[in-house]
């Protein structure tokens, strides 16, 4: 498991650091199975991840800086002043109520919002990350993702704990 993210996979000694790194690894994995309708301009461009987190989680997310996502390079910004230019937004559990304002700012943009949240992604959040017993799990809101011009791989969908809205039963 530690080997999942090579840059951070060296032996960790405490659980908090470990779980933060797993969360960061999840975020990075989400990016691997997500496609943007409007990708960043030009090849070799940057994909900005705005991380609203603190502590070990902030460190873990910061360590993703410079990693490749497809042909782009990930740029991690901690607590940016403006959400403008953010293609990915991470909202840790403790950032409310700023989160709602950030999400509102990004409502019309092609961006991916990932929030530490309850089991149901709140409005404006495409992926919610939560602990399910002793495991880390996630849920996906397809409606929000569609509004933001995002498509998730079915492989990601099948791993999600839940997907909203639930698929309609066809007669």
């Amino acid at each position, binding site marked *: 498991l530690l080997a*999942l993210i090579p840059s951070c996979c060296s032996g960790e000694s405490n659980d908090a650091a470990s779980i933060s790194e797993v969360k960061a690894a999840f975020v990075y994995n989400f990016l691997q199975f997500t496609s943007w309708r409007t990708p960043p301009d030009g090849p070799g461009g940057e994909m900005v991840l705005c991380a609203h987190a603190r502590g070990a989680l902030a460190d873990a997310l910061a360590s993703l800086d410079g990693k490749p996502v497809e042909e782009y390079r990930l740029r991690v910004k901690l607590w940016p002043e403006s959400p403008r230019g953010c293609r990915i937004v991470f909202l840790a559990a403790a950032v409310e109520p700023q989160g709602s304002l950030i999400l509102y700012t990004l409502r019309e943009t092609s961006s991916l919002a990932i929030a530490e949240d309850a089991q149901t992604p709140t409005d404006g959040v495409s992926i919610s990350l939560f602990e399910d017993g*002793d495991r*880390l799990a996630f849920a996906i809101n397809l409606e929000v993702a569609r509004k933001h011009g995002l498509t998730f791989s079915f492989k990601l969908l099948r791993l999600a704990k839940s997907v909203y809205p639930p698929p309609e039963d066809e007669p």
Partner: protein
Amino acid sequence: VKPRLRARLYINLQRWLKRINPTRLGISLVLLASLTLIAREYFSLRATLLADIAVQTSLIAENSTAALAFRDRDATSEILSALRVSSSIESAIIVDRQYTIQASHPRLQEPPSEATANPAGPAATFDPKGFFPEGIASDHEQRFSLTHLYLMRPIANKSRPLGFIFIKARLQPMYEQLAAFIGAAVLALPVFGALGASLLVVGRLRGQVSQARRELYRLAYVDTVTQLPNRNVFNQRLEGMLARMRRRQGRLALLFLDLDNFKFINDTFGHPVGDQLLLGVTRRLSGALRESDLLCRLGGDEFALILEDIDDQSAAAGTARRLLDTLEPPFLIEGREIYVSTSIGISLYPDDGADPEFLLKSADTAMYHAKEQGRNNFQFFSKELNSRTARRLELETGFRRALERGEFHLVYQPIFDLESQRTTGVETLLRWQSPNGPIAPDEFIPVAEESGMILPIAHWALRRACEQLRAWREAGLSDLEIAVNLSTRQFRDPHLVPQIAEIIAATGTPPQSLWLEITETTLMTDTAAALRKLHELRALGIRLAIDDFGTGYSSLSYLKKLPIAKLKIDRSFIADLPDDGDASAITEAILALARSLRLMTVAEGVETAEQMEFLTQRGCQAAQGYHIGMPVSADAIAALVLGELARTRKREAVRAMA
């Protein structure tokens, strides 16, 4: 050295080829074919299995990328569990890049579920040496053992490596398939063998059939005696050649050949000699022809020759002359010198016509004309000949009608006894009064002979004559004798004797009053049969006379054997009497001969008193001819004979009174 080596090699190869048994070779070939098929099937099955497993593996690798990335072992296992439907895949293992087992199928040993919450927990690792003892050189590995297929494929998401999948597949199902195939092949082997054998048999049969077909073709188109094309070929080729000449506006000659005395040779020396003669004639004729000329045997002693592209009729005449010349030297067959000649009739396209049948008929007509001209010559068809042919045809078709409508009648020529100075008999002569006028016997009798119509006509004539004799006898002409001619054709008719017996019985004819006149030439053909027939007629009580005596070549010894009673001296001798020395001598000799053989004599064609005087003085017994009496009706004969009787009686009465 080299050529010798090659020669030896060649000889060895020949020997080896000779030693090959076709059946054994066939079986070996079938076995070899079967083995090849099995090997092919094995490799094909192997390749199919590999491709199949590789595809399944790739699908799982692709599907498991997210699960592997998120370390979702449940999801990974679930994806792997799809393999349970595969009959071949025995086990499958998904590991991460450190070979930590993420999922396995079947779930033999559930890897410790440390999940995400306990990343430091112990994890089972997979040792690929179990699958690939020789180590792993790349992330695409595959290996066949005797029993299994081992496969390794990478799992990667957008070229980001995540881990590997290892697959172990059993080969048993493949072997079962192969076994089934071999079983089928083994079962099929005898079938193939039988098929092969039957093909051989069929091939041989087909060979025989085609040989038979060739033989039939040969029989149908080639004359067996001379190896010349036969009538069928002639007909076909003539049409083709005529069409060609029509296109080219060319001229073509058709020569019809009939050997002159072949029948005589065949009868005298036998068929083997006849066949050899035909072959010899064929060789000589062929030798005198151009390559393009077509010689066919139409049958019997008839040949047809087609000369294509000739300039004029002189070219055809040249060929005909050459053919006559080439037959001139005698043939030496079985130590005998045999002379044969031919009569040739020639018709020309387009001069004489365009219809193949007509051309052949025309050449045939011309050939008959050549025969009439003394044989051993050639004659061209002509319009005149054509009209003769037409006349002949008219006669031929007229005979039956003439018989039915009573157009035939008999006339009677008196035979005068020179000693008693009385008409003692008559010769019946046939006349044809057709609706278009009388037709001369010299014209229609030969045609009737050739067409065979002479038989019913002569039958009618004989019956009529016998009926007339009875009528005369009833009228008081009790001693009158009647003579009827028998033609050659008639004489050969096997029904002749019973028919005559029937007629004389039905008409109440005293047989001794009936004379049958037969020519020398008729008697000369097939002498043994002729002799037998003459004796049969004689046994009926009928008397026989030789007609036209002196024109044939009867030998004296032969004459002595014949049961004949009368010679009729041919008119050609009588006509030159009495002044011509030769004619007188011959006549006297015949009369002497007849006397020595105790035969009666009648002179034919007596036209003058001097002739009659000469014959009377030399002891000829009877005479007939214009000087004595023309052929007349039955009534006229009755009047004549009754008149003679009356005169005789008057004379006798006078003498008695004196």
